[in-house]
């Protein structure tokens, strides 16, 4: 380890280390961020959801988009795996089906960055218990 000789050294080090704890900071105010849930049940994983999740996390980071990506259990749309739910702040969550790496790229570019809907949306066809 090189010694920290001046303030610039410390700042550079902090810059490099920031990602190690950034996730913990973000989780504190996650409701004001874009939240992405990747379904991660057995069948989803078999269909490649872990690759999708890794891709989304890394790409969002590269493209400087602040978001929280979590995994969740089976969403029930097993025919359309991998499935991903995107909640933009202040908007209704939208579920996308068949999200492979290519589709994920399209969702990030068009929906998250541009606000345009892309193909593959699974419409809401159920009611939650607290709505009844």
């Amino acid at each position: 380890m090189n010694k920290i000789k001046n303030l610039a050294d410390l700042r550079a080090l902090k810059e490099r280390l920031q990602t190690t704890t950034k996730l913990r900071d973000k989780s504190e105010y996650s409701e004001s961020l874009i939240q992405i849930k990747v379904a991660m049940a057995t069948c989803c994983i078999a269909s490649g959801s872990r690759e999708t999740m890794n891709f989304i996390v890394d790409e969002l980071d590269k493209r400087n988009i602040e978001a929280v990506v979590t995994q969740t259990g089976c969403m029930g749309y097993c025919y359309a795996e991998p499935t991903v739910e995107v909640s933009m702040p202040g908007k209704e969550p939208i579920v996308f089906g068949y999200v492979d790496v290519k589709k994920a790229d399209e969702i990030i570019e068009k929906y998250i960055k541009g606000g345009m809907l892309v193909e593959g949306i699974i419409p809401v066809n159920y009611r939650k218990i607290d709505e009844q």
Partner: protein
Amino acid sequence: MADYKIHLLVCGGTGCKSSQSQILTEHLRTEIKNQGLDDFAQVIGTGCFGFCEKGPIVKIIPDNTFYTQVQPTDAKEIVEEHIVKGRQVKRLLYKDPKTERIISDSRGMDFYKKQVRIALRNCGIIDPENINEYIARDGYAALGKVLTELTPGQAIEIIKKSGLRGRGGAGFPTGLKWEITRQSPGNEKYVVCNADEGDPGAFMDRSILEGDPHSVIEAMAINGYCTGAGNGLVYIRAEYPLAIERLKKAIEQAREYGLLGQNIFGTTFCFDITLRYGAGAFVCGEETALIHSMEGGRGEPTIKPPFPSVKGYLGKPTNVNNVETFASVPVIITKGYEWYSNIGTEKSKGTKVFALAGKVNNVGLIEVPIGITLREVIFEIGGGIKNGKKFKGVQIGGPSGGCLTEKHLDVPIDYESLLAAGAMMGSGGMIIMDEDDCMVDVAKYFLDFTVDESCGKCTPCRIGNKRMHELLIKITQGNGTKEDLERLVNLGMVIRDTSLCMLGQSAPNPVLSILDNFRDEYEEHIINKKCSSGVCKALMVYEIIAENCVGCTACARACPVGAITGERKEIHRIDPALCIKCGACMDRCKFNAVIVN
């Protein structure tokens, strides 16, 4: 460096560690490895989360899932279900005792809602044994700023304007103390961190040192620069092994990075820290006694002035601050005094850490903005009294503080209001009592502690407190008289006025404040010879109700001293002169014939 998608934060404070959190950490790591997810999820041992009641705690980031009372055997399920498949392990989630609803996100818990974590900002978030995590969260930026951009005078001005006051209990303005040390002539000065936390039920300083040791190191270096001291000393009690271990590790890491040692941040400033171990004497928390103990002498206080800021360790100017005070300093420098002074009340700024203990649902470590009410702390953050019992009193400030009651629940917690109500801020111990606690016994307990811990140097404390203690024993044994109450008050006043140090001066506080607030309980013990909480054994009388007794002889056979007489199928009798009040007869009786008064 791999970027982890999921962080599992496992509490590694002393409380959770004693409930096997370390084994749990290892199990989680093994399970994650078995699943081939070592690049995906990371397990981090952190400092105290504060929610000690339900430890060990595991928090999953980024979805903020808060698992409580996690056992090593639960590791497999957490990894297989949550980390692999994204399904929460429902049975380990926190259940709100009031609404019976499951709360998975820690931010939704009453315990955390009203807290503002400044001194505890990194506790439960970073790995205290990894300096990189501290730096990643802006660590050492304050030291860098102070050394390269500010003069000592400017830095002291920031602390002064922030309104930070000593968190060890007395509440002396921190900036002013720093200024006095700076102005004291001498080319050799010292910075001392007082980590001699001795109140029963208090663990604020320990948790900070265990959870975020670098914040204290950084603040001590800042203090060294401001006051002109080149040496820092931490006086810590030997019964805090984990805090000592983490502090040592942190000091080594800081040295390796050049953040302690020669020419820090390329300036001419040099500073290093060494540890001094205390043997756990309560009086050594008093700064002059602490200094004598560090010098190798007896831990006895001396009269102030001269204050340590003028003449302290080895006769040199010494700045003594408490752990929590230091932990608040770096963030005040980086975020500015305006930010800090916006929190709190007119005269007491910022936040205070409290250790909740006793008959409260959520026992643990909390940090709240000064000015919050006792009601909010006990009934919202603390979750109310255990088992639905009735609240009776709260002892604030440990054995030096006072006992407050129901009518004080809306008193704002700040230095002045607490003093006016007859208690004090103290270092932050808060012991909550319910209807089953006998207040005379509580007073006796605290006085017992101070009598034990008195160093014996001055007469009022050594002998006066002993006499008060004897009076309390007399009362709890049913031999008290009305004059004894007056004697207690007179004696207490004299001890308060004439003792040498704060230990003696404050020792009568619990007795006097309980006498103020619970006079009826004292009188009940004296006049009616009764203890309605059923704590004072000597005042209890066991009796047999004639209607319920069937004469089975079970109680007579259970009695170890042969105090029960009576033939088979006849009503039994207890001889009060022989009875030792062990309760064996009551446990044995199947007909509820034995009662206690």
